[in-house]
């Protein structure tokens, strides 16, 4: 027991002492900050800054549209329709002085047809649809004699508040919050499992190439050595989380200035998630499960390789399983209840990323969670059993990397 503890401590202390650990500890939050910032920028990118309204109306329609657009924060100037104005505005758009321009005539009141020409018509459509539509409605109502005050009251815009009903009890999160929570949990799980799994692999490889492993396994059983190693590296990762957690808290508290002043876009998409105790427990359970599962496989890869280069090649199939579950995270965020999402959250090799993402994104039956955890546990047992056997034989082998047939023999005879 004391020897395992010594292994754990060595792995922990030697890792935390390195420059790379602290670079990672600092870089993590910076990276997340960058994600905040970028998504803030991207979220705003769709908005229109400068548009012109070519007003060919005799009613108040043009003025009304300008007013509506101004209310939603866009900046619009009104120019009267005249010969040649369209051409000169087109030139302005080309010179990027304008994002685009609207052509409005009285006919719009009856046909509902308004024309927009601009550099990014997709963004224009998104940004203009609602204010222009609302302006049209208001002017139409006023034309048939409806009291302007009544119109004003009737046209109070909708503010849809989304609220997740999670596990039948509380309503603590908005859609944006649960999205950002799921998103971040996915990223962190994927990164940490991969990063620390590979850490275990290089640790195994170092002991193998320097042959220290001979001295070690003559003092304690290979499995104890592997256990100490995995626990030590795992402790480093938890320490890393702790640092990230504290930094992340600080970052989230200051997210508005970071996202660029008004915080409009970033606020919409990324809000401080409400991390409940249950969510934290799910996250940790799947992180530890995923880490144990993958680090056992990475340890086996390290044991069967003789050089860094060989190990880098041999680890690819293992890493790809993780990459695939990460990629499918985006599909799962869209529809956490889909067959794909359910399947991935039950397969033990993808569940460590998939299940927490589904948990954070949507309402999840407890039975599914229990089943997924049970399968993961069973898989850890099985995979560790196989990996430990490969490890036991592999750490003493030198020379050529074994093929599948030889691996099977190792597993059988170890």
């Amino acid at each position, binding site marked *: 027991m004391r*020897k395992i503890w010594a292994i754990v401590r060595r792995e922990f202390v030697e890792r935390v002492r390195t420059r790379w650990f602290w670079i990672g500890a600092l870089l993590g939050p910076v990276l997340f900050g960058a994600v905040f910032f970028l998504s803030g920028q991207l979220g705003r990118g769709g908005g229109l800054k400068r548009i012109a309204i070519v007003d060919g109306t005799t009613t108040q329609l043009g003025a009304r549209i300008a007013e509506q657009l101004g209310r939603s924060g866009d900046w619009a100037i009104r120019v009267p329709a005249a010969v040649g104005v369209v051409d000169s505005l087109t030139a302005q758009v080309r010179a990027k002085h304008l994002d685009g321009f609207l052509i409005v005539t009285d006919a719009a009141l009856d046909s509902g047809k308004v024309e927009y020409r601009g550099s990014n018509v997709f963004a224009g459509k998104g940004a203009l649809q609602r204010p222009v539509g609302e302006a049209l409605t208001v002017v139409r109502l006023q034309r048939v004699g409806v009291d302007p005050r009544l119109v004003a009251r009737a046209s109070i815009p909708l503010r849809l508040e989304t609220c997740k009903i999670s596990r039948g009890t509380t309503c603590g999160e908005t859609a944006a919050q649960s999205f950002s929570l799921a998103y971040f949990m996915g990223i962190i799980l994927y990164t940490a499992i991969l990063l620390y799994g590979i850490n275990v692999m290089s640790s195994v490889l170092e002991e193998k190439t320097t042959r*220290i492993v001979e001295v070690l*396994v*003559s*003092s304690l059983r290979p499995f104890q050595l592997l256990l100490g190693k995995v626990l030590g590296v795992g402790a480093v990762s938890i320490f890393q989380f702790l640092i990230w957690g504290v930094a992340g808290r600080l970052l989230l508290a200051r997210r508005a200035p970071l996202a660029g002043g008004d915080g409009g876009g970033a606020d919409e998409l990324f809000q401080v998630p409400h991390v409940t105790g249950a969510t934290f427990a799910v996250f940790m359970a799947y992180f530890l499960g995923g880490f144990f599962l993958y680090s056992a496989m990475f340890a086996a890869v390290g044991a069967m390789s003789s050089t860094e280069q060989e190990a880098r090649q041999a680890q690819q199939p293992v890493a790809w399983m993780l990459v695939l579950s990460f990629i499918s995270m985006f599909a799962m965020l869209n529809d956490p209840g889909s067959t794909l999402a359910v399947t991935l959250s039950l397969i033990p090799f993808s569940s460590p990323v998939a299940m927490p993402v589904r948990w954070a994104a949507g309402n999840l039956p407890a039975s599914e969670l229990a089943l997924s955890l049970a399968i993961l546990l069973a898989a850890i047992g099985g995979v560790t059993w196989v990996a430990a056997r490969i490890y036991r034989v592999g750490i003493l082998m030198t020379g050529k990397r074994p093929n599948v047939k030889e691996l099977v023999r190792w597993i059988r005879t170890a």
Partner: protein
Amino acid sequence: MTSPAPASSPKPILVLDRVRKAFAGHTAVDDLSLAVPPGVIYGLLGPNGAGKTTTIRMIMDILQPDAGSVRLFGGAAGGRMHAERIGYLPEERGLYRKMRVLDVLVFLGEMKGMERRRARHRAGEWLERLGLAQWRLRRIDELSKGMQQKVQFISTILHEPALVILDEAFAGLDPVNAQVMKDTVLELRARGATILFSTHIMEQAEKLCEHVCIIARGRKLVDGPLGDIKRTRGGHHLVVGFDGSVGAAAQVFADASLVKKVDDYGQYAEVELAPGADPQRVLRDLVGSGARLARFELREPSLLKIFIDLVGPEAVQAGVRPDA
């Protein structure tokens, strides 16, 4: 060298009983039995590929024998159960390159069941003694190869093991370190430790070992006290030089139970001993006969010659290995 093995020798510290190990198609160690008495320097000798390292790995519980058993310190268990009492230096050397010298030693001491504080203390002493004190907080990869060898050697004996196992102990050592290693081995031996070391360099083994076991192709060819082996495999020739008085030497030489043939030159004689005769008795009898001796030399075959006779051409090949 010729100290007689006591008839009731003490219980062996290490026993291999018909141990066998095969790897994918070839048998590395085949039906090997040996017993290492306590307090000796024991040489496990053989050409490269003879199965020395595999044997040692089985003793250390790194490999499990396919058949047979390893018993250490009178118990049934192999090396891992007795890690506290065994110091093991593998053939291929290496340490954690990024760790500090003192940390490596403390860690490896802990692996041998040492308490941290004691390991730190002892490591400090040894580093001081081998002239590495000012390097204790440096990283291993900042040390020269020779210094790394010293550190690794310290790690092997830090916990004062009762049994020290050195695989190809002197391979790759620079002359200074070889000297340090030899001195330390002798010191450990003087303190009562048992040393088992493997080598394919017979000159080294001849100088250090009291007991040897010669193996080739995984099989034992001969084992026992080195003196006995030399006697039974030759060792029949004596050179006797007299200092004036020859006494009744002629009578001693005439004893057929001792001497098979003699070539007497008056002040000098070459004697071929009778089979099984003890040269010590010849010496006693000569002194008893009143002869004054200037020279009494047992012309033993060198261990290398015995080795080559036993092993065949393989041995020669092993002997000329440049990294020897």
